């Protein structure tokens, strides 16, 4: 079987999606494509199935929170229009290369379309982000919390969530416990 020659993912995606590819960045040999949030699943699906690209595996989905001031109009560095960003790290086993596809979500109502339709493995990775960062993935088949208990309040991995907030699960000896415990939030 003949393997088609590898194509440049950036120019291939630009050709098809045009303005939906907002920025392209190179850092330490890694390519990042910033795409328009609403067209994210389309772009990912295109990168997965097209000959010469075949990014057949989703390695990781990770979210980052640029709180408090490293984003928006007042920020002078990288292109960071919104507070939250979600990166899809995809891997082409055939051509042995990686690519990062990134989309931004606004602080007021962080929403992104789900990539579960493209890769089933995105299911849990996105659930984890929804749990930890509070980003809603529209069309996700199972939007329950993944790691934290169902009745948990807040999204722990946001930058404005305190690290050491301690809530007591059983209150019968609460006074005795708090007497000798240091509190990180103090």
């Amino acid at each position: 079987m003949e393997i088609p020659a590898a194509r440049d993912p950036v120019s291939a995606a630009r050709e098809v999606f045009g303005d939906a590819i907002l920025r392209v960045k190179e850092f330490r040999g890694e390519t990042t494509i910033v795409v328009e949030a609403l067209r994210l699943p389309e772009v990912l699906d295109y990168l997965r199935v097209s000959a010469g690209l075949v990014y057949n595996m989703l390695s990781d989905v990770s979210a980052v929170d640029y709180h408090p001031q490293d984003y928006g109009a007042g920020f002078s560095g990288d292109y960071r229009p919104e507070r939250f960003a979600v990166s899809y790290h995809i891997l082409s086993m055939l051509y042995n290369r990686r690519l990062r596809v990134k989309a931004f979500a606004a602080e007021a109502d962080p929403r992104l379309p789900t990539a579960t339709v493209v890769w089933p493995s995105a299911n849990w990775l996105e659930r984890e982000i929804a749990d930890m960062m509070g980003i809603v993935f529209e069309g996700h088949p199972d939007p329950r919390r993944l790691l934290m208990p169902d009745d948990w309040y807040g999204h722990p991995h946001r930058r404005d969530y305190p690290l050491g907030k301690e809530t007591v699960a059983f209150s019968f000896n609460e006074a005795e416990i708090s007497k000798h415990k240091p509190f990180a939030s103090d």
Partner: protein
Amino acid sequence: MAVATQEGSVEAQRRWEGSLDHLRGLVSERAVTGETMLLNMGPHHPSTHGVLRLLLELDGEQIVTCLPDIGFLHTGIEKSIEDKSYEKALPLTDRMDYLSPMSNNMAYAAAVEKLLDLDVPERGQLIRVVCLELARCASHLVWLGTHAIDMGAMSVLLYAFRERERILGMFEMLSGQRMMGSYIRPGGVWRDVPDDFLPTLKGFLNDFPAKVDDYEALLTQNPIWKDRAQGVGVIEPDVALAFGMTGPALRGSGVNWDLRKAQPYSGYETYDFSVPLGEHGDVYDRYLIRIQEFRESMKILGQAAARLETVKGPYRSQNNKYCPPLRSELGQSMEAVIHHFKLWTYGYDAPDDEIYSAIESPRGEIGCYIHGTGANKPRRVHFKTPSFMHISALPVVSRGYLLADMVAIIGSVDIVLGDCDR
């Protein structure tokens, strides 16, 4: 089932935690009507390898649906790392995948090095390879013992842990700790190997292959073992890829993908070893692959032990902006003292940018995503861990098998809940 006996208790029944309403759409309708049974397995169960909870829908003994519930060991490591400088965060990574702490150290150190663009000297890379392969053996030994116990072979654990103690002894020799060594650090390793390490390693390499033969004699042709393992938990290659499975679980399905070969790190491209592959993708193939990996690790360790004698030089980067100067320099050089003080109080700045780097752990690909802030603490660290992906695939892998096979499947994909929940 709760029965509504009093007025107003309908509301109470709705709030009753056994209500099935929140499971609608996740389990089949037959479970809601009571035709099939819902069984809770874990979080305290001897063969879920930690604190995994599975909600199983059973038709007789057959698994219809499997809903894994994780997070019982969610430690907030990623959030804690955001509050520490890059080097101080390293001990936390040990405690994610506690069966092979060295691999986690390596994943994190490799990511930090990539972010800083820091090079590791040859001897440092060599010592790392020794540690990683020993960690692979130690991790597979625990897997072998516990997997065999799950399947009813009690004695294998005693043999496997006997050899594991020797590996832990070597780790203690290197780092001063049996398990959580924090030995592999950004820029190299903590210190050079002590003088008595090499003879100990050679003694181990001399004995271990015969021990692997012993394990095989106990299990490989054992008819009970074969009955329990062959044809059970078959993972098709396309399913494995779709669910992002890596490591022996992927190679058991015949997909030739090993990051040590495909994207070599730490000088793995200079070692001669092969990647064992399975054919059927069942529990038995995954068992055979890990047994073969013992032998391949022995090959790598043999070559590395020979090089340890010849390759001399620094064991960590000489760039004192990122790596501490030698202890012996502190008495003579003011610059060394300044570097030392700066490193252990403030740390170092890393660029405000993001990288992703991955290595092959005993379980599969451990990826580390770091987004720096430009200062000495990361903005975000995320670990992509193999157990997480493997557990997310359990519903598909286990569908249609018997309840007893579930235990075999969990064991064979080799999950560690600390690795999964982080």
